[in-house]
């Protein structure tokens, strides 16, 4: 009998607040025998081991709200009008593959991209979908899982002092309930830059000294805090250190002018800034490039507004009613940012070592609703990968004629996560441990690496 696991689902009543009930319920740090037992169970799995990965870092372009697959990478030009929607398609560098008319620049470099058109998930609520897409696990009430960025931050010893996992402008994704770190230590959570790089006065808050202070003073303050934390009677005597990791990281970041200059977008030529597009997504992608250049492992570009329940055309294409062509809506802005990022990384010889992932929490309903929008639709949607050794110019899987379900080669968020881990040189079978010692794989047992994408 096949596993029934994929058919068991919870009501939409759980959310991040429930997920804070992490695994402490059970082991309390005892029971090593169980741990070994589970480890043995785990070794029985067979998944391809990651072989000499090219990708050192990853830029996730998160289209928050759930981008319409039918308006971006999986158009249905032959479907009835209520499915086809308001946008036309355009031919691409790959014969026979068409994408949105609003993605003309991306179309010309489609040989560098891989599109998955058969993403499928049962979770059509923002927080749940986000959790599934970003961690590879469906949410459960007993454990919040870490995102890929957090796992990377946890596993990699990153040179330099920039946080290994950064979100621009912030990590308020999918309803805002995901912390990002899951059961991993707090310091693996994404660092939110805080400001929008597209704003003229953009700067990261609190990186410069308060008046009258200097590094020597800050260093002394930090050491005093460490001393006080050691004196604390409640200090965990069994812990290796009582120093506050966030405090140490904050100090190191402040102490490094070089690291801080990473956030200085005004160092970029005006032409470059223009090329990425002046919208938030463009300048965020440019900042992301500067960060991965300086060794940051994972950057989330969080782009808002894709929850297009109404006025699809205006939101996705024009940006505002009566905008000059080709529009400044979400998709043209994505087109500028994505094409510029891929080309720029290519020019710098960094494309092979930088994995780019474009996705959101789910797709949108095949039929337009009465408000000329589309609602949540997780049964089939698209995701895009580029760089990082991903063989470009291919379309993996397909949806049916109306974009309602996968026609072939269904890929779950778990599979995609396992694939991303593989590309980044992390074995999807790798086991990490929760605070109470429970071993958990980075990608779920049932996940399968999408072989076409790992080259």
């Amino acid at each position, binding site marked *: 009998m096949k596993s029934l696991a994929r058919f068991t689902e919870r009501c939409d*009543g759980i959310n991040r607040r429930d997920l804070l009930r992490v695994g402490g319920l059970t082991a309390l740090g005892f029971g090593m025998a*169980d741990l070994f037992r589970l480890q043995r169970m785990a070794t029985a799995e067979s998944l391809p081991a990651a072989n000499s990965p090219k990708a050192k870092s990853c830029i996730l372009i998160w289209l928050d709200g759930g981008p319409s697959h039918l308006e971006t990478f999986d158009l249905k030009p032959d479907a009835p009008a209520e499915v086809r929607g308001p946008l036309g398609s355009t031919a691409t560098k790959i014969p026979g593959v068409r994408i949105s008319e609003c993605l003309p620049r991306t179309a010309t470099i489609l040989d560098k991209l891989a599109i998955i058109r058969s993403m499928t998930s049962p979770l059509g609520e923002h927080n749940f979908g986000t959790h599934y897409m970003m961690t590879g696990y469906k949410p459960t009430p007993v*454990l919040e899982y870490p995102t890929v960025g957090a796992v990377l931050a946890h596993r990699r010893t990153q040179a330099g002092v920039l946080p290994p996992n950064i979100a621009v402008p912030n990590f308020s994704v999918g309803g805002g309930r995901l912390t990002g770190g899951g059961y991993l230590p*707090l310091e693996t959570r994404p660092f939110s830059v805080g400001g929008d790089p597209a704003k003229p006065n953009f700067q990261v808050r*609190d990186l410069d000294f308060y008046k009258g202070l200097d590094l020597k003073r800050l260093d002394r303050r930090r050491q005093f805090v460490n001393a006080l934390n050691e004196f604390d009677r409640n200090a965990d005597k069994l812990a290796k250190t009582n120093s506050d990791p966030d405090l140490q990281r904050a100090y190191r970041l402040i102490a490094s002018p070089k690291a801080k200059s990473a956030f200085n977008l005004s160092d970029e030529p005006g032409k470059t800034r223009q090329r990425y597009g002046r919208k938030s997504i463009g300048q965020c992608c440019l900042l992301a490039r500067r960060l991965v250049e300086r060794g940051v492992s994972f950057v989330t570009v969080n782009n808002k507004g894709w929850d297009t329940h109404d006025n699809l055309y205006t939101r996705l294409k024009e940006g505002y009613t009566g905008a000059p062509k080709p529009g400044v809506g979400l998709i043209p802005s994505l087109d500028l940012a994505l094409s510029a990022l891929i080309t720029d990384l290519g020019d710098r010889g960094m494309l092979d070592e930088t994995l780019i992932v474009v996705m959101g929490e789910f797709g949108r309903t095949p039929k337009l609703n009465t408000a000329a929008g589309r609602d949540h639709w997780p049964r089939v949607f698209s995701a895009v990968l580029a760089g990082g050794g991903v063989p470009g110019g291919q379309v993996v899987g397909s949806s049916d004629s109306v974009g309602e379900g996968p026609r072939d080669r269904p890929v779950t968020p778990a599979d995609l996560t396992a694939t991303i881990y593989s590309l980044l040189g992390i074995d999807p079978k790798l086991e990490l441990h929760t605070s109470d010692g429970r071993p958990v794989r980075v990608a779920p047992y049932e996940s399968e690496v999408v072989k076409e994408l790992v080259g």
Partner: protein
Amino acid sequence: MPAFVLLLTAITAANGEATVNFDNHVIPVLTKAGCNTGACHGAAVGRGGFRLSLYGGDPAFDYRSIVLELEGRRVNLAHPDESLIVLKSTESIDHGGGYILENDGPGAARLIDWIRQGALRVAEKRLEQFQVTPQLHVAEGVGATLQLKATARFSDGSAVDVTRWTVFKPEDASAVEVHPDNAVAKLLRRGRHIVVARYLDHVVPLELVVPLSDTTVDFSKEPRANFVDRHVLDLLSTLRVPVSPSSDEATFLRRVTLDLTGRLPSTEIQNKYLESSKSTANKRRELVDSLLNSDEFIEYWTLQLARLLRIRSQPQDTQGALSYHRWVTKQLTDRVPYDQMAREMITALGDTHEVGPANFHRTAAGPREQAEFTSELFMGNRLRCANCHNHPLDRWTQDDYHGLSAIFSKLTSGRVIEVNARGEVMHPRTGKAAVARIPGERFLDDDSDGRQALATWLTDRNNPYFAKAIVNRLWKAMMGRGLVEPTDDLRATNPATHPALLADLAEDFVEHRYDLRHTLRRIALSAAYERTATPLPKNRGDDRYYSHAMIRPLEPEVLADAIADVTGISDEYGNQPIGTRAVSLFDPQIDSEALDILGRCSRVDSCEMVAGAAGGLTVKLHMFNGPLLNGKISNSKGRLARLVADGKTPAEIVDEFYRRALGRPLAKREREFWNRQFHQASTSTAERELLEDFVWSLLTCREFVTNH
């Protein structure tokens, strides 16, 4: 396989009947196989054109789907085994969901038998009770197995063993394994684990425990202040987890003052309390009583209730929030019982600028959202699942959800709350106006006052939710974790860590006239509350059984006030008067960079799981370089400047700040440490800088930013 056949035979034999009943026999097969889950045909839009009610909650609907839709192709009376429902589930033909039932298995056999008998839906007997044994089991160790057994009692008095068709789902699959065929549970990890059993529309939890240690603990000498301690120690004893000792006076004073008033104990109170020669028990009782009777208690608990009620300004309208906030303060001042507060909020009408409690009806965006909010607030229940389908893990139906919404639809929105008799919400299943309903109880007549009926029902002393919902939150405020988490999700399938304690607390609360102070006092005077936060090697992993106190980050408002109190410089909040305390702000939208960075709750959504302040890189960067600490420590009007101007020595200043920030004198090695530091300061500038750095580190260290 033969075992199943025997079991099936046993069932039919026990019933003395051979007929397969749709409601009682077929639906469990579909549920057991997962056909009617939300991920499959139980989804609101179904799957592949075939839709079932979620977990079989609506058998009539399922019968229509299976038997009448698709021109009857789903069942084939002439050739039962060629019915689509059999061919698909056994994947004899292509099935998107794959291979669900074994060809020769008992599930498929049941389906075929039912079709062979005519695929009828005969109103027979109703499931009245569903029981699982054992409900609680303490196993000897990891690896232990036990047989779970499920019994269904029907309206005709019959009891049937339905173990084979019950779905057992462990909350944590890595802790418990339940074999899907024979219902043998195997315990994989130590701890207390919950398994949820589902049969037809009934769900019940069972609790399986593997003690956390092989060594028993002896609590015979542990103090027991009241029923709280009996329950807490009973469970710790079962789990074999030892308890940390009672905390010292200084720690207790700081903890309880923060919990009840959101403030650090002043040096005056510290001196008085620590120097009192009364017995510990008397001192603590007097302290708790004086805190509960203080104005600071009213101010801080107004904030707690304001968060719970999500009091916030409306666009271009702060007056309503202000009047609501003042009303809450007045209730606490007048010691109005909590049930009366609830009745007033639910029944209030009028201009929200004048009538504080009428703002209750402006909390959520519409009647449905208001129903969700009300259920979370006053029942600690999430009706929201039941918007689109009956709640899969609870008793709530769509009738309950839309019926409660209907009650709130009879009100106008906006500044003035009035009755709007024509207001209605649509029931998505019927497409008609939903009938007002007391959730889980009864429909209301058209002409009855729905809000009055709701208020009366909620605050009836026998209401099963109202008192539990609030005492669970009071417990959390004092102890750091709800007996049920999340605190707005009380249901049978999410049982409390200490169910009997929750019940006793609720009963005690009702007995004492819904007095919030009474329950807080009960908890504050328990031995469980007094325990130190210092873990023992054998209880350090405990985060929910209260073997030691939980270390809790201070809330953003409390931390901001504490920083202001210690430094002697208050923060500025929008255009509020200088000296306004963060805990007294009536609106979370009042400008404050500090509170934003520390992570205050916007109250747009529930605030119940908003973590405390002082975490994360962003906060630490702000501590280093922002004005929150720096602007206050070096301020010429601040405490440090005043103490220096008064000619105090560094040692005296260090002592003073320790008292104010940590509520205790320095330990010997701390004094030595700071003496060494100040010994190195050669100039007055150097000494002043060192003092500033000392105060900064004190306000950043873990002991200051937490309650412990």
